[in-house]
């Protein structure tokens, strides 16, 4: 079947099997491999992307369900000039990533957390990221990165290509 969506600001129309997961569509058909798949039970969040302003686990959405939607992946987060998004910059500054496998989903989820709550506490960040697993960092520096990103203001909860408000 044919599916059309806007991905990182670009209109895409592709032929997919009806059962194709959005995660596989992004990775295998569109070549956007920053979105990772770490489990098969909607538990790890490595595949988190933003669809029409909502953070979703793309392994649990069919590509067809994103028909007409606006999708943002990690690749679409930095500014057009390559300037890092406040959450990306904070992850680097605070060493919020090690092996990097959870990072894409974690960064996208963090944007959603900050969209809903621009000034979260340590505990609120942890609750907000509960659906995203990381084996390397012990979450300590991820939480710090999100708190640091929050200091940069409302931009930390927005995505550049989205006209819609983001929410976790």
């Amino acid at each position, binding site marked *: 079947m044919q599916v059309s969506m806007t991905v990182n600001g670009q209109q895409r129309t592709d032929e997919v*099997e009806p*059962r*194709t997961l959005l995660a*596989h569509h992004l*990775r*295998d058909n569109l*070549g956007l*491999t*920053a*979105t*990772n798949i*770490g*489990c*098969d*039970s*909607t*538990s*790890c969040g*490595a595949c988190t992307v933003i669809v029409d302003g909502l953070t979703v686990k793309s392994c649990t959405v069919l590509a067809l369900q994103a028909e007409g939607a606006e999708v943002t992946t*990690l*690749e679409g*987060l*930095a500014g057009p000039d*390559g300037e*890092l998004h406040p959450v*990306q910059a904070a*992850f*680097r*500054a605070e*060493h919020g*990533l*090690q*092996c*990097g*496998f*959870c*990072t*894409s989903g974690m*960064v996208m989820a963090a944007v959603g957390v900050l969209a809903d709550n621009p000034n979260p506490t*340590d505990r609120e*960040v*942890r*609750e907000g*990221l*509960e659906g*995203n*697993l*990381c*084996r*390397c*960092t*012990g*979450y*300590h*520096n*991820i*939480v*710090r990165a999100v708190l640091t990103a929050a200091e940069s203001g409302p931009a930390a909860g927005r995505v550049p290509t989205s006209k819609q408000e983001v929410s976790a």
Partner: protein
Amino acid sequence: MSILGTRVVRTEDPLFLTRGAVYTDDLTDPRLAGALHATFVRSTVAHGTVTEVDASAAREAPGVVAVYTAEDLGDLQPVPPPLPFLDAGFSRPWLVPVGGRVHFVGDLLAVVLTEERYQGEDAAEMVVVDIDPLPAVVGTAAAATDETVLFPAVGTNKVAAFGEPAPEDFFADCEVVVTRAIANQRVAAAPLETRAASAAWGEDGRVTIWCTNQGAQQAQGQIAGWLGLDPTLVHLVTPDVGGGFGAKIGADQEYAFVAWLAQQAGRPVRWTESRSENMTGMLQGRAQDQVITIGGDRDGTVKAYSLVVNQDCGAYPRIGTVLPTLTMLMAAAVYDIPKVHAQATCYATNGTSIGAYRGAGRPEATAAAERAMDLFAAEIGMDPADVRRKNFIAPFTEPFTTASGATYDSGDYAAALDRVLEAAGYADLRAEQARRRERGDVRQLGIGVSAYVEITGADSGHGTSENAQLEVHPDGTATVLTGTSPHGQGHATTWAMLASEQLGIPVEKITVLHGDTDRIPDGGGTMGSRSLQQGGAAVHQAAVELVEVARKRAAELLEANPDDLEVDLANAGLSVKGTPGTGITWAQLAADEQLIVQTTFTAAAPTFPFGAHVAVVETDVESGKAVVTRLITVDDAGTIINPLLAEGQRHGGIAQGVGQALLEEILYDDDGNPQTSTFADYPFVSATELPSFELVEMATPTPMNPLGAKGIGEAGTIGSTPAVQSAVVDSVAHLGVRHVDMPATSMRVWRAIREAQKGSTN
């Protein structure tokens, strides 16, 4: 100013944060164009005789190019256990044939090659398998009886035994003796990236294998051996690797299988396992049943300690079989105990094979010793911190050999404990605990103290050596080739810092390459917290040697005395002493002749990082639920090169320790069926179950390498696991509880309280 010891952010991160790292499943290498997808058919029965494998329907399924069963393997020979002293009867077939036995849920029965990924799952479902079940052997106690023997050709489930029983009078001179059976449970390493491999054969008869692994060179040798290939025909590449934690040490049979399949099919082949496949197929960790016995006097002096280990090796014994020898070596831990006894027996069971997991043998030693100290302290009514202090090895700067035979390089365990207790506010915590106990609060406070020492940079198959190549290019940039294998540790940054320190070339201009056996034929990989102290030291040595090569070259070019030249950090080159900016740059030195050094660093011996942790928990005594509220740690890893990254290693280690202490366990039912084979079932520690950590600094340099660095990758886990377990026990100790096995779940804690209230001392 030296760059060493500063918080340099990672050079890896800009790409990781914008287009993502490139893991094995992400590869778009042209050699993999048109690759087939491999999907394995695995046993759903833990132990049984295969009576049928019918692939005829699967062969007709859409997109199927081939289906292989045991009949289609040609001359592939079963893979022998990876340790030469193990009985060849424990060999693992590539695919279990009809008439053969499956030995765990996940054992391989067939493999399907399809054009598309989804077609593989469809076709694999259509392979008809019939297995006559045999009684399953779950755990070491069942294995030891030999009532059911996994490998009839071997005749026993006993895989190996190390050490002798303790003499009968071992504890005869002790006023108090406490003994207890404890569990160091089976856990999943669970790197976020599951196993994956791709393979493509070239027209030159060589195969390139990309796989997610902690040591390309070791994996290359293993795969070549299993396939009967000359190792030079195998080009093994480890792209970005999404975590390992020990479970990606050594090649897995599936990786070699992918290469064999690509050869058979005449097309490249890719394989990426699902998480549920990973949770039965990937090496797991720990899985020791222990009996600890500790004896001493009522003044707190420990006089004798015994540790008896039963190691569950899983179905096909692998590296986990020898990890108990590390547990035995480290049995004495941080204590100056006159008599220490340790022995271990290893058993095959119908579970997933056991390998290394963060700490690999040493956390088991520390957990045992720390539990023993707590039990002894409780028995004689002494504060656990005081018992530890009374028995510590005194501070030493010259090597010290323990009663269990390990020779430690340097340590000051009392200082580590003092620092962590002070940072924790130990006296205040005890006072708060007393108040809550007095009030009979529902939420009681528990304080756990642990002290540890571990061995890092031990020989894990590559001696205590690592090599490095450093080249400066005519454009003024430099390239480091390393035999280490980073998968999150940030070697690209730290190795560049080490080279930059000597050369003055900025970190951003230094590229670090690893994990490619054509470019780096020799290397020990990243495991056992060896990388900085051996691989980093090799980079340092290469940079020092390169400066000497350059000094001679510059002396000729400048017509100066080599002794008058020094590295001009500001000018990125060499200048005559005292006249910076006047000399010759690295770019000029490399312009006409290659400027390159290849060197090997060999450490005199392993190093022994140490530390002390305090965990604070709040336990709801009505539900048994314990929540970690604080974790304060001293982790002394000698000289720190990049504190930002070293702290990251500590954080991750601490969290995994909490995971094991409170939550995580691989469980089987009586038939050997995994009960925790997805992330929905396996309680992988999440952000909500952890506090932010309080790290306390301490650095005692080692003399074993010029950097003064010890390993930091595993220390956090080794310290935090017993601290958290101890804190949970401590939170309900006033109710009569002396011990709660890991993971200290709500149910276990609740039961322990109930049993204690019934009058039986738990």
